[in-house]
């Protein structure tokens, strides 16, 4: 069973259709699957529901798919960095579902773990809880949230072996590991690809069972959103 594909186009071949739901990893622009997003753009598929913590920025990340109007609905926790997003939303061309960030992460984790719903105290007494089942446990009120799955998860990892075992780097990990578990098909782009046996099995973040296709590129743009530095003493 070969999981290695020569490029992003080959890695996504046969997986992209109009109207599918795609999970895309990353927090801000850190750890986003930039090559795979570019290929979704090139494919021209439309009417996508995209589940991602953020919506990229103008001209980068998921912002590319907003420019081409390929996304019809976003499920996110924060979309503040994207002017085009605001324009499309206010014109009614884009549907938006806000989830608290932890609820979003847990919905994805639950979906990937075969849990259809769970109860959380996040959002109780707010707009987020409206229309959802509430229940009391041990004297405290909780709201029911549903697990999330997707037709396709596109993620970015630092290293993979040929089995699809993955290692992430620093805070570029974020939503990538949970999304890997919740995609019917998960495609990963990686910075380093090694033969099976080269990664320490005790240090693998995502086991290969969650990864169906791997594509390796040597270099990535990895744009920094807020470059913040301190002066040398």
């Amino acid at each position, binding site marked *: 069973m070969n999981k290695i594909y020569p490029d992003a186009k080959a890695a996504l071949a046969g997986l992209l259709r109009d109207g599918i739901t795609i999970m895309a990893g990353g927090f801000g622009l850190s750890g986003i699957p930039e090559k795979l997003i570019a290929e979704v753009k090139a494919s021209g598929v439309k009417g996508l529901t995209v589940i991602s913590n953020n919506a990229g920025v103008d001209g980068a990340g998921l912002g590319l798919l907003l420019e081409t109007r390929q996304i019809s609905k976003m499920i996110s926790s924060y979309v503040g960095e994207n002017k085009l997003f605001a324009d499309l939303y206010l014109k009614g061309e884009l549907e938006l579902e*806000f989830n*608290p960030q932890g609820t979003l992460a847990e919905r994805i984790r639950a979906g990937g773990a075969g849990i259809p719903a769970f109860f959380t105290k996040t959002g109780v007494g707010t707009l987020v809880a409206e229309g959802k089942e509430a229940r009391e446990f041990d004297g405290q009120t909780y709201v029911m949230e549903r697990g999330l799955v997707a037709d396709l998860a596109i993620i970015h990892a630092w290293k993979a072996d040929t089995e699809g075992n993955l290692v992430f780097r620093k805070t570029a990990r974020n939503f990538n590991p949970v999304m890997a578990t919740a995609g019917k098909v998960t495609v990963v782009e990686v910075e380093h690809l090694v033969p099976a046996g080269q990664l320490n099995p005790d240090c693998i973040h995502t086991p290969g069972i969650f990864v169906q296709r791997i594509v390796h590129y040597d270099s990535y743009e990895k744009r920094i959103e807020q470059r913040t530095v301190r002066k040398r003493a």
Partner: protein
Amino acid sequence: MAWTREEMAQRAARELKDGFYVNLGIGIPTLVSNYIPADVTVQLQSENGMLGMGPFPYEGEEDPDLINAGKQTITELPTTSYFDSAQSFGMVRGGHIDLSILGAMQVAENGDLANWMIPGRMVKGMGGAMDLVAGVKRVVVLMEHTAKDEPKLLHRCTLPLTGAGVVDMVITDLGVFAVDRHGGGMTLVEMAPDVSLQEIRGKTEADYALGPGLG
């Protein structure tokens, strides 16, 4: 004299206790990390997946794989650990974080907090704020006392809530209020130097009791 932003952050830093795991919000709360008392060791959590957040990097040492929840470049410490978003909010929701210091648009005398949405304006999203206020053991709000001369400490929030009955303390440029989120109301416990009770009364809609030495 009302407190400056730096003095507000300095006052908030006194809420940090040795051994605390702490989440700092964006804005004035970020400044709190500059005033951590010398005899106190805390670990800062960044909800995008890091404990043990270090200072901003030196120029040329920025790493696109190492950012905080405000998407700013940061650095790691010897105590640092990384984890995914589900585990990050597991530690938030599960009550493992001792203290959250965050900004607000409005706080009500019952501890309700509004800081994410103004109806009719483009909404950016709540990010992790709803999870933090629902899950963290102690929630301290750090904000200006008024916005364009309108009170922010109210009987009831008029903006959509981030959390209901979630605030334990409010630190403004004029003073410090303790909030009993279990129905005990709000108490003014400290005033900035040379700020009068009259000024606070004039700029506060919420009802509050006066703490020891202030009545």
